[in-house]
């Protein structure tokens, strides 16, 4: 891999940008690997990157049905934060945020991390108490978090509607200053380039159709490009995790729902942090291109169609216009949906399974983007050592049997 730098930029500019090397290869599948990762989204690619980098396991295939980052990695609203309530969640999401903070250097790829602050609004007394509880819990866990009074909120976001008599009065907010946004495609591409340069084979347009087992052990996968053998197989297929796990006879406590997002036409800089409101169901930030990036809650029914119902969007835009009246004449440019895999406790599953050599990483629901590097880091450890890292041990599949759930419905915010 040729390193990207100011020198390489100048050299390639002089060559009219005709000579950049490919960021990753497109090899044919080998007959066997040490590890097969099913799913070439951010989490799968991060798993491959850390398997190669931290554990020296580079005879790895990442198998992707479509194209890299074409699922939820390319469909989310790119928000990164770690202000979760419980110790287990704070630890894993904070690990992820710390990895994000060094990821551009680690990958030699600019992921455009912008730690512009993530604000969660409180609209009534209960919201205020709930936020203050979460802020205290965050601070005990070493996660930066602070309470903002309405005057401070107005200072940071002058366009927010704080007129008396407004439908959603703003009584306060929590702010995580280290939270923010990053460039989602760059994360997929940077991770792919790094993994590929360490010897990982990335197989796009290759669909897994079966998981091969013998005597309670996994032996490989059946794909649209032939049989590929491996003693370890990892499922990281987000919205389709139930479908793939079903190939190995595993039932998951997961429901897949459509989650919609959209962007407005681009405007000049108008909002310089991420504003989220759990109660009125909307979140907004402004991209570097000037578009408002908007998200809200999931659609109410199971589905795999990557599109949702209009009334969900209407509800979200009504909330947006109430909170920010000046957005009312903006036009929406694009709208899309992704399939999110939600668990009953709004926490993920990063776990071994009853089948030896089969691992699963799913259930990140509506907030997996922020966890991309952390999820890959702990999952790589789980696969390499055949035992979970202390950070992901609580997020095992067995917790639904023991009852040790990690209820993050509050901190999972708007979308759940």
């Amino acid at each position, binding site marked *: 891999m040729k390193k990207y730098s100011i020198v390489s930029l100048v050299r390639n500019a002089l060559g009219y940008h005709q000579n950049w090397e490919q960021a990753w290869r497109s090899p044919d599948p080998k007959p066997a690997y040490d590890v097969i990762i099913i799913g070439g989204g951010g989490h799968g690619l991060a798993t491959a990157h850390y398997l190669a980098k931290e554990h020296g396991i580079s005879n790895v295939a990442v198998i992707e049905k479509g194209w890299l980052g074409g699922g939820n990695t390319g469909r989310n609203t790119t928000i990164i934060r770690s202000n979760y309530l419980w110790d287990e969640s704070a630890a894993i999401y904070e690990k992820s945020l710390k990895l994000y903070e060094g990821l551009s250097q680690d990958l030699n790829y600019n992921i455009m991390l912008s730690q512009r602050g993530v604000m969660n609004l409180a609209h009534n007394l209960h919201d205020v108490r709930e936020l203050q509880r979460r802020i205290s819990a965050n601070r005990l866990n070493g996660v930066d978090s602070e309470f903002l009074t309405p005057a401070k909120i107005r200072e940071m976001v002058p366009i927010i509607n704080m007129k008396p008599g407004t439908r959603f009065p703003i009584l306060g907010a929590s702010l995580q200053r280290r939270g923010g946004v990053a460039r989602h495609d760059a994360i997929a591409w940077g991770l792919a380039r790094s993994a590929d340069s360490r010897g990982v084979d990335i197989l796009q347009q290759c669909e897994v159709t079966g998981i091969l087992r013998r005597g309670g052990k996994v032996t490989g996968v059946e794909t649209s490009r032939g049989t590929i053998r491996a003693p370890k197989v990892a499922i990281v297929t987000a919205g389709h995790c139930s479908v793939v796990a079903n190939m190995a006879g595993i039932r998951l406590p997961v429901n897949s729902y459509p989650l919609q997002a959209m962007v407005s036409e681009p405007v000049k800089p108008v909002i310089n942090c991420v504003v989220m409101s759990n109660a009125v169901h909307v979140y907004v930030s402004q991209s570097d291109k000037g578009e408002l990036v908007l998200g809200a809650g999931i659609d109410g029914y199971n589905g795999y169609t990557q599109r949702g119902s*209009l009334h969900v969007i209407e509800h979200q835009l009504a909330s947006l216009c109430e909170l920010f009246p000046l957005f009312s004449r903006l036009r929406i440019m694009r709208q899309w949906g992704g399939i999110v895999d939600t668990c009953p406790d709004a926490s993920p599953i990063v776990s071994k399974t009853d089948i030896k050599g089969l691992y699963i990483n799913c259930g990140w629901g509506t907030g997996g983007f922020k966890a991309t590097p952390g999820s890959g880091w702990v999952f790589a450890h789980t696969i390499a050592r055949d035992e979970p890292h202390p950070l992901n041990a609580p997020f095992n599949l067995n917790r639904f049997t023991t009852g040790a759930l990690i209820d993050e419905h509050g901190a999972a915010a708007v979308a759940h």
Partner: protein
Amino acid sequence: MLLIPCPWCGEREEAEFHHGGEAHITRPKNPDTLTDEQWADYLFMTSNTKGVYLERWVHQHGCRRWFNIARNTATNAILAAYRIGQKPPKRAR
């Protein structure tokens, strides 16, 4: 927006309804005798089917009655609506 055929009211907009999750999950008759695994399976595990999925809906802003539908989750095509307690029609199996 789905157009949902309520067995009592006919086709109405999805916004009048509320989704009630997977259909035909029966509460175990003797919960005391179940193992933790069996109880977890009843309580949490889902089929989350991609394809024809049997699910419950309630016509919350209409007749307020519960019923089942068979819907293809990959296309959103609704194949059948039938009453609670009935078996799914053949074309939906």
